[in-house]
């Protein structure tokens, strides 16, 4: 019981993250990189989630810490201010196709892309899709119930709320995509007219 208590107090003050990473690793990493435009060394300092998810796959995972982290991610999700989840699916298609944004050679004034096609199949007409993530073709068949809207929005905002240590970026939580872009991607996935939901010819 004592250790669980210790872990709970530790996690309540989530700021004090378990130092999963050895000091000299952080030092070596800092010494091996240099600021380049918008990509500064600050980006190499890990938050608790990144630290927790940096273990090589086979290392045992402490369930309590994992549960707490997941809950903390879920609680931090910010839903659309006006309660409207769906934007314009054509703009969403552009966000899904663009891999630009936040690289040191990218222009910070230009909107970031979501690069969804890098890892997912979406519109059946697009042959250049990745397979790191599951196919999302015909995602619209899932319908637009409130639960489905909230689930999909959370997956985009911070997928770790459901799938801790997933490889998918936290598009909302890490401010990669803004609220309107997220709404447009939601439409790209859920709008029946979207190319994602057209039959494969």
């Amino acid at each position, binding site marked *: 019981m004592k250790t669980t208590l210790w872990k709970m107090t530790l996690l309540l003050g989530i700021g004090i993250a378990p130092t999963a*990473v*050895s000091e000299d*690793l952080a030092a*070596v*990493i800092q*010494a*091996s*990189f*240099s*600021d*380049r435009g918008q*990509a*500064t*060394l600050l*980006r*190499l*300092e*890990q938050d608790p*989630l*990144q630290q927790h*998810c*940096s*273990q*090589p*796959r086979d290392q045992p995972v402490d369930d309590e810490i994992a549960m707490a982290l997941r809950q903390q991610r879920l609680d931090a999700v910010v839903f659309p201010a006006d309660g409207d989840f769906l934007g314009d699916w054509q703009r969403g298609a552009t966000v899904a196709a663009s891999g630009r944004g*936040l*690289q*040191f*050679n990218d222009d910070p004034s230009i909107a970031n892309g979501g690069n969804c*096609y*890098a*890892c997912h199949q979406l519109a059946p007409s697009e*042959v*250049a*899709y*990745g*397979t*790191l993530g599951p196919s999302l073709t015909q995602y619209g068949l899932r319908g637009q119930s409130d639960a489905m809207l909230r689930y999909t929005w959370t997956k985009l905002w911070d997928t770790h709320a459901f799938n801790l240590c997933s*490889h998918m*970026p*936290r598009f909302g939580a*890490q*401010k*990669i995509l803004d609220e309107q872009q997220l709404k447009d991607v939601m439409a790209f996935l859920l709008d029946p007219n979207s190319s994602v939901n057209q039959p494969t010819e």
Partner: protein
Amino acid sequence: MITRWCLLWLAFPAWADEGVFDQYRDLMGDDNPAIFVIDEGEEFWYQSQGPSGATLEACDLGLGAGVTRGAYAQFPRYFADTDRVMDIETRLIHCMETLQGRDRTVTAAKPYSLRGDFGTELEALVTWLAAESEGVVIAPEQGHLKERAMYALGEEIFFYRAGPHDFSCATCHEQSDKRIRLQQLPNLTDHHDAADAYGSWPAYRMSQGLVRTMGWRLQDCFRQQRWPGLTFGSEVSIALQTYMAVNAAGGIMTAPGLKR
């Protein structure tokens, strides 16, 4: 001067053409412009340069002064004269400094071609030295304590997630038979994929018309991971090359490869 005239047969690693580009690769055939870069690298090796006017023929790449056949396949490795584990790129810069008297801040300032360049001295030297290991078994030295420590550091970095997208190398390179868009991704934790991938660098990149080295490959990967700039010849670069080379050990060097 031995003019390298024998054609290099390119073994296309299985993961490089998972069907969708077979037709493209068949039509391409085996004519790889890296052949020119091999010759240019050989010429730089025998060219006297720097204040001392020496060539690189006395450079010790781990198998004795001037021995190039099979040297690349045993990198990264520990060198007593520098008391450091070095990759082939930092070792070449070391030889330019110690043998030719050339200033390291100049030789290491621009190791890789920028857009509009048509190949650098370092890229050519590394390409020739890789060709000198073509067909040789990948066998990075792991006998020294520092070499083993470099592998452990490489593994830790491989899984280190950071930056706005929480990307680590493992994000893309720890699963088999996956791809980003149509670009196959080798699972670098798997011996077969690691051997195919590691053994095929340096490689001629069609999209740029240049042969690119593994050092450049890591720099450009980190750019796309949204990390800051990886410093040339840094611990992280050498550690990751060590991690890949050890995972690839036993495989065969096929470089220079032919890639997108």
